[in-house]
């Protein structure tokens, strides 16, 4: 299937007193219709900037320097603001840990969804209301007839997330970008929301991009995972294979850290987990327990290491073999 979103060599930087600093470095990534892609990485790895740059929502000092963002065959970077605005909240929607921010505080949620429906198709007011009630019921909002008149501030965070998913259903959103789907939500509620997003992908072919620090979310709701470190993708793999044995030392550290029980001590060389990314050679080098001299010469390329798997590490194949042997 042709990808619905293609990022090619996307580079974003921000201006500092000491000159421009790269936030995303030539990042290339595809997302297909109906696919659920997880993006993981720590704070500062560029995950949120990636999501915002897809939507053209970067404000200074951030600047997109280079690359293309092709959505359904159109390069979004060439769109004027007017056309971009039609796309946002329409074919492409975003939700963040503060879902209320994405709803208009002055308009009832029923009216907001009715407006969406009527903007995209010829539908009489009454029919749009009926459809809105169906949508609210579909996303598990109790008593939808009464909730039509509710304003965003009257709803909990979980309810606002549901309203955004209902709007995505109304729009027939093709790509839903979710920044931290579980942050700020209680466990039982966040599972309900994730289930709804999953249904959206399965039944409507919506592509999901779930940006999360929570590897549990990725393990259970994504088919593919891309790991980001210092503005680059360092590994891109099918979820099953990734959790069975990651091909990048950074991925391996993330998995170990997320484990529900503590791992064996001293199995690996102690490294400084807080070291800044290196500015020459492989950025992960200062934190890497398996680095060799060659890692200091250049940033490794993102190379195919197995079927459907890419990794940006000189030692990826050795890592994979060790994992397989262990």
């Amino acid at each position, binding site marked *: 299937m042709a990808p619905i979103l293609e990022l090619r060599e996307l580079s974003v930087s921000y201006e500092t007193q000491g000159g421009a600093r790269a936030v995303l470095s030539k990042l290339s990534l595809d997302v297909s219709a109906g696919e659920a892609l997880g993006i993981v990485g*720590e704070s500062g790895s560029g995950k949120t900037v990636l999501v915002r740059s897809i939507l053209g929502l970067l404000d200074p000092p951030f600047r997109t320097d280079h690359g293309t963002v092709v959505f359904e065959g159109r390069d979004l970077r060439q769109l004027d603001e007017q056309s971009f605005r039609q796309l946002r909240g329409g074919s492409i929607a975003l939700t963040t840990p503060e879902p209320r921010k994405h709803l208009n505080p002055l308009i009832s949620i029923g009216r907001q969804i009715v407006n969406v429906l009527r903007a995209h198709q010829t539908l009489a007011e009454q029919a749009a209301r009926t459809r809105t009630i169906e949508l609210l019921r579909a996303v598990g909002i109790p008593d939808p007839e009464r909730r039509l008149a509710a304003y965003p501030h009257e709803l909990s965070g979980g*309810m606002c997330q549901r309203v955004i998913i209902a709007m995505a259903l109304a729009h027939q959103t093709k790509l839903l970008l979710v920044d931290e789907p579980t942050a700020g939500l209680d466990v039982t509620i966040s*599972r309900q929301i994730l289930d709804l997003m999953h249904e959206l992908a399965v039944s409507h072919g919506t592509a999901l991009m779930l940006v999360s620090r929570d590897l549990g979310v990725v393990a*259970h709701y994504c088919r593919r995972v891309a790991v980001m470190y210092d503005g680059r993708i360092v590994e891109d793999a099918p979820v099953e294979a990734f*959790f069975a044995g990651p091909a990048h030392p950074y991925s391996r550290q993330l998995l170990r*850290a997320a484990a*529900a029980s*503590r791992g064996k001590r001293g199995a690996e060389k102690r490294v400084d*987990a*807080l070291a800044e990314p290196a500015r020459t050679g492989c950025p992960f080098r200062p934190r890497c327990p398996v680095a060799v001299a060659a890692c200091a010469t250049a940033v490794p390329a993102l190379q195919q290491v197995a079927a459907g798997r890419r990794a940006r590490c000189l030692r990826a194949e050795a890592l994979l073999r060790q994992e397989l042997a262990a």
Partner: protein
Amino acid sequence: MAATLLQVSDLTKIFPVGGGHQLKAVSEVSFTIRRGEALALVGESGSGKTTTGRCLLRLIEPTAGHIQFDGVDILAQTQRQFRALRPRMQMVFQEPYDSLSPRMRVGRIIEEPLRMLPELDAAERQRRALEVLGMVRLGRAAYDRYPHQFSAGQQQRIGIARALVTRPDLVLLDEPTSALDVSVRAEILDLLSDLQAELGLAYLFISHDLTAVRRVCQRVAIMYLGRIVETGETEQIFEAPLHPYSRALLSSVLYPDPASRLSRYVLTGEIPSPIDLPQGCHLASRCPMVEPRCRSAYPPMDRFGEGRSVACYRAQEMRALGGLTTH
């Protein structure tokens, strides 16, 4: 030395919310913590776990109940008497940076709680501060620096050092890792486990991060709308919870392993408002096991084996559902 360090009985905290309404944030909560034991208090927002923690340190005054710390009834004490006990009960906060004064050097921040102990002179305070900096693996160099010069994980270590400097028996940890990245979170959790073993500390670990709780705590108490619904050994409860709410909560945990399969137990609807709760079981409106008596009277805490209690009329039937892990 008594094995029980903290005994909380029938702790209740009611907040008036205007218009004659009441918010019963904590209702008749009872639990014990033994010396050297880590107990987790878990639950979703509005469950009352943070209010319970704050009552223990008398940061807020409970409406009713008893709190015995090492045999002393702390609610019967004057604030002055209680202050003498406070060095033995310390707290680590959720937001590391916000809980450290930005204008004080780290050494001064850590020594601050020692200023309540007049028997310690400046040299002894410094010696103790350097000692705890070593315990949290930060080293002497941190002593003269400011909080903003440290990463979030290191700041949380400073917060832990400040809690340990008075050599407490009990440390209250309020969501100590929820502001941290995955790898830093793991380091802090491991540090907390190491310190617990090295120093024989007891923890009350307040969290909604259930994988963190499973990693650190020996026992767990699960709260829902102000009440403890189930308590017991961590592994027993995580493997086979007996209260419908515990089962729903623990079967929702997403472990970082695509092969882990839990049999989901699903509640419908949202958590109701904690204002003017009905007299029956607080879960009645969402519970798949609900029957008429659940709506008329709150179920008592029944014992199920060693150290395990469940507040549900149908816990025996819940047992028939077996473990959460499916193979």
